[in-house]
């Protein structure tokens, strides 16, 4: 039995446990919605963390892929009559293709130059979604038809809570698999020294492109779920602020920590809700708390606390 639970799957066990335990302490059904949002954002953040925290390549345009996934499940059923579940996959495929095409030229860039190029990519997607009003409803957005799975209409926070939890568990498992594989080792090597990876024969450009595509698919699925959960979307979902939010979740939770991605998404989804009592000062309070986290836990919440615990243990 002990051998069945591989220790590298600890974050996966944590997700399953948390998802099962949380409803027991939810005071009202509203909390299912918060839970679903945390799981959905965590999915996108894990993908971005594979790119940023493991491979060391920044993206300030990842909300663009959220947008592609979201509009896929809005446009597909509305304008093309396609089933929603199929559009989740179609959106993921489209995001993968876009990432593959866009990634080839821009992943040659490094550091700040890559950051600005990905930022431009995100802006481009948001502008297309705003301007193609015939398809997207323009700045006002469009409504999203309900998802029907095997004759079961998935609606309401509770249903989405469980769908999001299940998908997140799969996302966590795939990410953990990737890290402990030839591809995962190569990505972490690229993060530390591209030239050293190259002289060992690692196809650096191909590996970077691969993880960019994977992270785009994670974000796209998360975008589809957000759209289906909310029932209505606007181009803001693909906007710059969303991209920054995803990056903040990665860094706050901990670069290169899958568990950190869950915590980062959790903190930045729950905090604004918890701070609504501050009314006008809500954003200020949020900003101060995030700054405080970064000053006190500068490597991110999970890696810093993990190191502190490991230091105390022996």
């Amino acid at each position, binding site marked *: 039995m002990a051998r069945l639970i591989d220790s590298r799957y600890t974050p996966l066990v944590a997700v399953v446990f948390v998802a099962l335990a949380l409803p027991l302490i939810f005071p009202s059904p509203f909390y299912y919605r918060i839970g679903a949002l945390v799981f959905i954002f965590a999915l996108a953040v894990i993908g971005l963390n594979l790119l940023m925290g493991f491979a060391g390549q920044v993206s300030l345009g990842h909300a663009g892929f959220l947008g592609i996934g979201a509009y896929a499940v809005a446009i597909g059923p509305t304008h093309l009559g396609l089933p929603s579940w199929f559009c989740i996959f179609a959106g993921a495929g489209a995001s993968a293709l876009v990432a593959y095409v866009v990634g080839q030229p821009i992943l040659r860039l490094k550091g700040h130059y890559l950051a600005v190029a990905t930022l431009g990519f995100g802006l481009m997607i948001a502008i297309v979604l705003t301007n193609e009003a015939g398809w997207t409803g323009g700045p006002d957005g469009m409504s999203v038809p309900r998802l029907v799975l095997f004759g079961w209409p998935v609606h309401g926070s509770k249903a989405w809570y469980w769908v999001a939890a299940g998908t997140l568990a799969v996302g966590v498992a795939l990410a953990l698999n*990737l890290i402990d*594989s*030839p591809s995962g080792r190569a990505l972490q090597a690229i993060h*530390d*020294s591209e030239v050293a990876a*190259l*002289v*060992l024969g690692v196809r650096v450009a191909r590996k970077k492109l691969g993880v960019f595509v*994977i992270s785009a698919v994670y974000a796209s699925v998360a975008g589809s779920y957000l759209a289906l959960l909310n029932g209505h979307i606007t181009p803001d979902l693909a906007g710059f602020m969303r991209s920054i939010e995803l990056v903040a979740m990665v860094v706050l939770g901990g670069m290169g920590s899958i568990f950190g991605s869950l915590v980062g998404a959790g903190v930045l989804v729950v905090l604004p809700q918890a701070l609504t009592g501050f009314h006008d000062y809500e954003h200020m309070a949020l900003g101060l708390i995030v700054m405080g986290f970064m000053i006190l836990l500068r490597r991110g919440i999970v890696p810093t606390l993990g190191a502190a615990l490991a230091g105390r243990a022996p």
Partner: protein
Amino acid sequence: MSILQVERLSIAFGGVRAIDDVTLSVPRACVFSIIGPNGAGKTTLFNLISGVYRPAAGRVLLDGVDVSGFAPDRLARRGLSRTFQNLQIFFRLSALENVMVGRNRHETTNVIQDLLHLPAVRRQNRATREAALAALARVGLEADADKPAGSLPYGAMKRLEIARALASEPQVLLLDEPAAGCNPVETGELDEIIRAIVREGVTIVLVEHDMRLVMNISDRIHVLANGRTLTEGSAAEVRSNPAVVEAYLGTHNARGRAVA
């Protein structure tokens, strides 16, 4: 036939000819050293041979094939790897994982298999791990396998880079100042490690300032000064060449004594 040939290689940076018309030929399974005073162009020559820089003129032939202008990863897959003078360790990974990355070009699973952790990936991971442990043992670091690479002492990191490059199974291995920062005992061990590598048929091209090591171990020595070839020969020939003594050894008294 020689395994590595450099023909009339040149590169300039901002008008300075860092490497100027250098030609050399490295026989198979030997230790071929490149020496010269600081700024002679040794590391630049390594960067040209390993594909980090593109030559402005001239050719590099690996096993008879023109590989001029090949990217470093393509060269590595043809069997040419190297270490770095300023360390390029994967600090995020353990010592063993560093060497496992060296196996990358021999790993056959694709990214989809990796994501799903199929049995092929499990077998691959096991095989990679065993090969990496064997490479670590060749440089005497098997006891440090699970330590974070960044926690190793400087000399051990230098040897870790050698193990990592060995794991990629190169035909030609360029070592850039492997003895820098080593004490005499460690340098002696390094001598043994290099000899063992050559016995297995790998060709070593060595850039090194430790003249005792160079003179002991080298089959041939190529001397550079100001980016140009000064001379080439056996240890005895280079040692007794007045031009070498003047250009290189004469200006460095301490080293001069070690050689003379």
